[in-house]
């Protein structure tokens, strides 16, 4: 692996991804901002006023971290899966495959693109949230590191989805049938302490619960789970998913005949 070459290649890929996201901003930036504004209006403002407080916080403030994290997760995942699958489908993935850039660089470049879009949309949703509620970041390091790690995890997951996808339907199955339910059941809108003990146990098997709660802890200082556990899970996921992505690329699964 040629590190200097890979660094230039990664920069190139990231620049290309940023240009792509900005070129199709109507598809990439605007929808999450509108969706999250609706969440804040309906769940936070209209319904939230009847709910009162959650874990001692105004309901609008309580759901804000979860909604920000939800937008980061879905956009990180969506960016990588659509970009990499689009490159496979249009066969311009071959531009990278014939070049001497390493497989690690291809993965890192795409993941960095996903993280940047996730963070950009997350920042936008945070700005929207500030129109509805006041957010004081209690633990800035935890907030930033958790959002970064979560974004990396879901960018890697999106990459794996794209590697296996053979048609456009295949890139919407996981977000629709896996990601969305896990996100909704991941404590975005409620504390799991409200659930019966059995369902609390089931919820703890959902990795998104740890991301949402750790991020909420970073902003509000309250969480249903231990922060150390959240870090451990995220780091294990990053290592496992990156290794799996590299294994798939080295084998040429879905990209080489």
């Amino acid at each position, binding site marked *: 692996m040629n590190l200097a070459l890979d660094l230039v290649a990664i920069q190139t890929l990231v620049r290309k991804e940023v240009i792509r996201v900005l070129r199709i901003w109507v598809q990439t930036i605007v929808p999450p901002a509108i969706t999250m504004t609706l969440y804040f209006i309906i769940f936070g403002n209209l319904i939230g006023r009847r709910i009162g407080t959650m874990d001692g916080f105004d309901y609008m403030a309580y759901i804000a971290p979860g909604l920000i994290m939800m937008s980061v997760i879905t956009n990180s995942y969506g960016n990588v899966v659509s970009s990499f699958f689009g490159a496979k489908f249009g066969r311009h993935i071959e531009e990278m495959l014939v070049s001497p850039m390493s497989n690690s660089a291809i993965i890192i470049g795409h993941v960095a693109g996903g993280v940047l879009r996730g963070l950009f949309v997350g920042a936008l949703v945070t700005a929207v949230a500030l129109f509805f509620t006041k957010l004081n970041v209690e633990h800035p390091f935890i907030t930033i590191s958790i959002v970064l790690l979560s974004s990396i995890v879901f960018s890697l997951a999106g990459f794996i989805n794209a590697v296996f996808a053979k048609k456009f339907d295949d890139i919407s199955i996981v977000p629709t049938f896996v990601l969305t339910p896990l996100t909704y059941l991941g404590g975005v809108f409620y504390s799991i302490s409200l659930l019966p003990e059995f369902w609390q146990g089931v919820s703890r098997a959902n990795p998104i619960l740890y991301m949402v709660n750790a991020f909420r802890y970073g902003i509000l200082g309250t969480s249903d789970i231990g922060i150390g556990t959240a870090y451990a899970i995220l780091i294990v996921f990053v290592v496992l998913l990156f290794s799996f992505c590299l294994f798939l690329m080295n084998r040429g699964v879905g990209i*080489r005949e």
Partner: protein
Amino acid sequence: MHALTLKNLTKTYDNGNQALKGIDVSVEEGEFCALLGPNGAGKTTAIGIISSLVNKSGGEVEIFGHSIDAELEAAKACIGLVPQEVNLNLWERVENIVLNQAGYYGLNRRLAAERTEKYLKELRLWDRRKDTARSLSGGMKRRLMIARALVHEPRLLILDEPTAGVDIEIRRSMWEFLRTINEAGTTIILTTHYLEEAESLCRHVAIIDEGRIIEDAPMSKVLRKLQREVFVLTLAEPAAGLQLDGFEVSVRDDGDVEVAIGAGQTLNEMFARLNEKDVTVVSLRNKANRLEELFMRLVDKNDTGAAA
């Protein structure tokens, strides 16, 4: 030094199709080599393996001494590939496509920009650099793929049917361009279905059929194997039943005459016979391109051999 060495290269696809059955090819540095073969012969599979888009089943590939098994990245750095199918990101700007490719090869932004300008100008695409690839014509897309393949100035350029579907004017300008970069030292491997293109450009030819190399030699040596050429003559007056001593003659439906000239015979002898019969020739042309004739003969022989 060999620019490319293939040793006993085999490829069997998952569906059991044995696309390559152990091919051996060597291409010298600086060579302009044609890789010819009928559809499905294994040319694109071989190119796919060389450029690491297809996993090989067996054998060895070396590019300027770098094995693709042991030094894949060094081997890839030597290659520029112009694939058969258009594989451009059609939504991307022309200049960004070339700039990005330079980046994937590790060229810094300044050098990448210089090379992008150089090759887009040489391939007459500079004025279209801000346009998206989808707005280009078919010929322009082909030229853009060549610019993209050249931006890192590879030592070995592989062109898989680069002039397919391109009009004759652009094709000829592309030939000139390819000659120039070959003269500047770039080794070129070309696959094409236009055999006059291969004959005009290439100094070496390898013919692949049914996954096997059936000819691999300098173009001049290959063409010497051709023992017979057929010329079509347009005559001033119709000459039904024309016979020429020592020559095989046939009269076509349109009145033109086909004369076969074998080894050891000359055009002068043919004209002498025509003069004896007071036949005036208005024009003369080759019935088929020489390489095309040889190609058909070799492929037919291979098919007959396989059937037997």
